[in-house]
C-alpha cells in the first residue's frame, strides 16, 4: 500500500504567516541565536554566556534549564532545538574537570550542524566589572581582527568567519553615521584569541572625518581553541550558495565618459546607403525614360560644354 505524506496546511492566518516566516527565502531573516547550558557550569562561564546574550538580545533566545547537552557527542537534541526555535546559531556553556570553562559556538545550515568550535575561557572580566556607560542593545558592531594567524592558519580563518557570523547582527544596507557605537576586537596571539569590546566615541578632528576614541566597556576574555568541527568544503560551498536573484545584474553596453555622460552603443544591421531615405532634392532625382530622351538630345547639346560635376 502506498502512502502519501501529509501536506501540512495551516488552518489560521497566523499559522500561515509563521510557516512563511520559517520557510527558506531569498533574503533571509537575521540569524537567531540560542543560549543554553550543559549540566554543570561555573560562575565565570555562566556570566560570559549572559554577556554574550546581552549582545544578541534582539536575535537570541536564552534557555534557563540545564540539560545534558554535549554537542560533540550528540548533536541531535541541539538540532531539534534549532528547529523548534528557528535558530541557526547556538552558544553553550559548561564546566567540567577535563574542560574547565567551556564555551561552544556553533552554526547550523538547514537545521543541521555546519560549524562548531569549542573555546576555553580564561581571564574573564564581566560586563559588570567595567563601571562605565554602556551602549544600547542591538547596535551593529565594528569588528577588528588583529594578528596574522587569522589569515595563515585555516582553523583561525574559519573561526574568524564564525565570529563574524555570530556577532554580525542585522544585515544592514544603510547605516546611520551616528550609529557606530560598538567595536569588537579579536586578537590572535600564540594560538589564543583575545576578545575585547569597546564603545566608540567620535571626537572632533581637524578634518571632516572624526577622530575615533575607544573606551572599554564589555567583557574581556581570553579564548583558547579546543576541539572543533568545521564543515567540509562541499558543505560550506553548498551553504554559501546565493540565489540568482541576489546576484548583481550585469549591465551591458552602458558606459560613462569623462564628463559623466551616459553612453551606449546602438548596433544596426548592414544598410544599403544608396537606398537611404533622405531629403528630396530635385536636382539629385533619377530621370525617367521619357525625360531621358528629351535630355539626351539636350545632353548632346550640352556635352560640348564639358562634364558636369554632380554632387552625390
Amino acid at each position, binding site marked *: *500500500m*502506498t502512502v*502519501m505524506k*501529509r501536506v501540512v496546511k495551516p488552518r489560521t492566518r497566523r499559522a500561515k504567516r509563521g510557516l512563511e516566516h520559517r520557510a527558506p*527565502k531569498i533574503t533571509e531573516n537575521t540569524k537567531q541565536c540560542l543560549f543554553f547550558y550543559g549540566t554543570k557550569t561555573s560562575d565565570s562561564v555562566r556570566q560570559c554566556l549572559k554577556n554574550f546574550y546581552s549582545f544578541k538580545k534582539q536575535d537570541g533566545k536564552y534557555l534557563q534549564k540545564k540539560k545534558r547537552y554535549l554537542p560533540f557527542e550528540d548533536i541531535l537534541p541541539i538540532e531539534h532545538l534549532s528547529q523548534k526555535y528557528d535558530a541557526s546559531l547556538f552558544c553553550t556553556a559548561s564546566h567540567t574537570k577535563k574542560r574547565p570553562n567551556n564555551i561552544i559556538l556553533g552554526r547550523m545550515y538547514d537545521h543541521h550542524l555546519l560549524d562548531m568550535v569549542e573555546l576555553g575561557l580564561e581571564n574573564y572580566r564581566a560586563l559588570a566589572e567595567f563601571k562605565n556607560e554602556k551602549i544600547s542593545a542591538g547596535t551593529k558592531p565594528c569588528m*577588528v*581582527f588583529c594578528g596574522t594567524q587569522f589569515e595563515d592558519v585555516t582553523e583561525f580563518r574559519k573561526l574568524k568567519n564564525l565570529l563574524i557570523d555570530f556577532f554580525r547582527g542585522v544585515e544592514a544596507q544603510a547605516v546611520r553615521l551616528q550609529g557606530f557605537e560598538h567595536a569588537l576586537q579579536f586578537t590572535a596571539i600564540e594560538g589564543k584569541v583575545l576578545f*575585547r569590546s569597546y564603545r566608540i566615541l567620535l571626537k572632533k578632528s581637524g578634518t571632516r*572625518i572624526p577622530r575615533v576614541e575607544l573606551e*572599554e566597556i564589555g567583557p574581556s576574555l581570553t579564548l583558547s581553541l579546543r576541539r572543533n568541527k568545521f564543515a567540509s568544503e562541499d558543505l560550506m560551498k553548498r551553504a554559501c550558495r546565493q540565489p540568482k536573484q541576489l546576484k548583481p545584474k550585469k549591465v551591458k553596453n552602458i558606459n560613462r565618459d569623462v564628463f559623466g555622460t551616459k553612453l551606449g552603443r546602438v548596433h544596426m544591421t548592414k544598410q544599403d546607403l544608396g537606398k537611404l531615405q533622405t531629403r528630396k532634392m530635385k536636382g539629385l532625382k533619377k530621370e525617367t525614360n521619357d525625360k531621358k530622351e528629351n535630355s539626351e538630345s539636350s545632353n548632346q547639346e550640352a556635352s560640348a560644354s564639358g562634364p558636369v560635376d554632380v554632387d552625390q
Partner: protein
Amino acid sequence: MDYYEMFRMTRQDMFTHQETTRHYLRIRVGGGFVCRLGTVQVPYDRQKRSQNIDEKSQRKWKLVLNCAISECFISRDEDQCDAYLCSLARDGIQALLTKVWDLPSEQIDNSIYVTLPKPVTKLPREKPVPKGKEITKWEQYAREKGIKRRKKGKKVWDEVLKQFVPRYGYRKILAEKEKNWVKEVPDNADPYEDQFAKAAEIKKENIAKNEYQRLRNIAKHRKLKVPNVGITGNEYASAKDLGLATHYARHATASLGKFQPDLPNEKKVKGLGKKRKHEDTTGDAEVEKKRYMAVLEKIDKPDLNLEGAVHKQIRDENVIMDLERRGGKKYGRRSKMGGRHRTKSDHRAAKLGKGYHKIKAKIKSKAKFGGTGKGGSKGNFGDMRKGAGKGKGAGKGKGGGKAKR
C-alpha cells in the same frame, strides 16, 4: 634569548589634536634588560590583498562587511597590556570609519545615512535557496500550446435573468437556483430519474476530480508515487485501515484470494470477506425448537452442587465460632473490632467473594432455628443433604480443621 621588538606609540597633541606616531625598536637582552634604540620605519607586512592603506601607520587594513581586518605584527610582549590592544583597535576603527565616511551618503530625517557596499566575505546562509514554484500539468500544457491566461471579470452577464451575476460564490448559487427552478427531462432519459440529483452528483464528481488532480500535482512536485486505483491513506494508517488494504490486495487476484499464501505473521482480518450466516426465519419448526432446548439444557443446573454446599457450611461454622470466641458480641467500636472485616472468617468470606453482611444474615437465620450454632446447624442441614453421612463426616473433619485455624 635576545630578540628585537618593534612597537609604535601614538601621542596626541593637546592643542592641535594632531597625532604623532613614533615607532620604536627595542632589544630584549638575556636577563630581561631592555634598551630603546630609537625610531624605525615600520615595514610593509605580508598582506597581499588590500583595499586601504592607512598612511599614518602604513598598516594594511581590509574593510569587509563592517569589519576592519588588520594583519599586523603583534609584539610578543609578555606584559602586553590592554592599552596596547586598545591602540591597535583604535587604529583599526579609525581606518574603517575613514573609509565609511567616504561612502555615498544621503540625508533622511536630520541624520546622514551611508550605503554600505556589498559584502566581500562569504558567509553561509541559514537555509537553502528556495525552490521556485512547480508548474502544474495544465500550466505545462498551456506553455507548450501558447495558451495565455485571460483575466476574467468578477461578474458575468446572465441572459436568462437579465442581470450581472457573480462568477462564483453565494450569490452565484442563488442565481442558479432561480434559473433552474425547473429542469427539462431529456427525451432519452428515464422519466423517473431525478434530474436535480443527477446534476448534483455530476457536480460532486467534478469537485472530487479537481481535488484528485490538485493532489496529484502536489505529489508530482514532491516526487511521490500515487496509484490510480487502490488506497492512498495517511502516513499513520490505523491497523484497521492496513487490514482493509491487505484484504483488498489479497483478493485482487484472479481466483479472488483463494490460493493466496499467507505471510508469516499475517492475521486474518475479522469481519471481512465472509458474511455472517443467519438462520432461516421460515422453515421447519422442529429444528428451531431443538436448537432452543439445547441452549436451555446448557443453562439448566443440577439440583445440588455438593462442593458448594460443603464450603458454605464450613464458612458458616467458622463465623459462629468466632462469634463465640468474642463472647457473642457482634458490634463494638469499629477500630477495636479490627476494621470492616472483623474476623478471620470475614476475611476468608471476602476472598470467596461474599460480603460480611450476607454472612450476618446466615448467622441470624441459624440463630432462629435455635440452640448452639454448631449442633443446631448440623442437625438442620443434615437431612437436606443427599449423602448425609459422608457429608457430615467430611464437613466435621474439614470444619474442625478450619475452625482450629
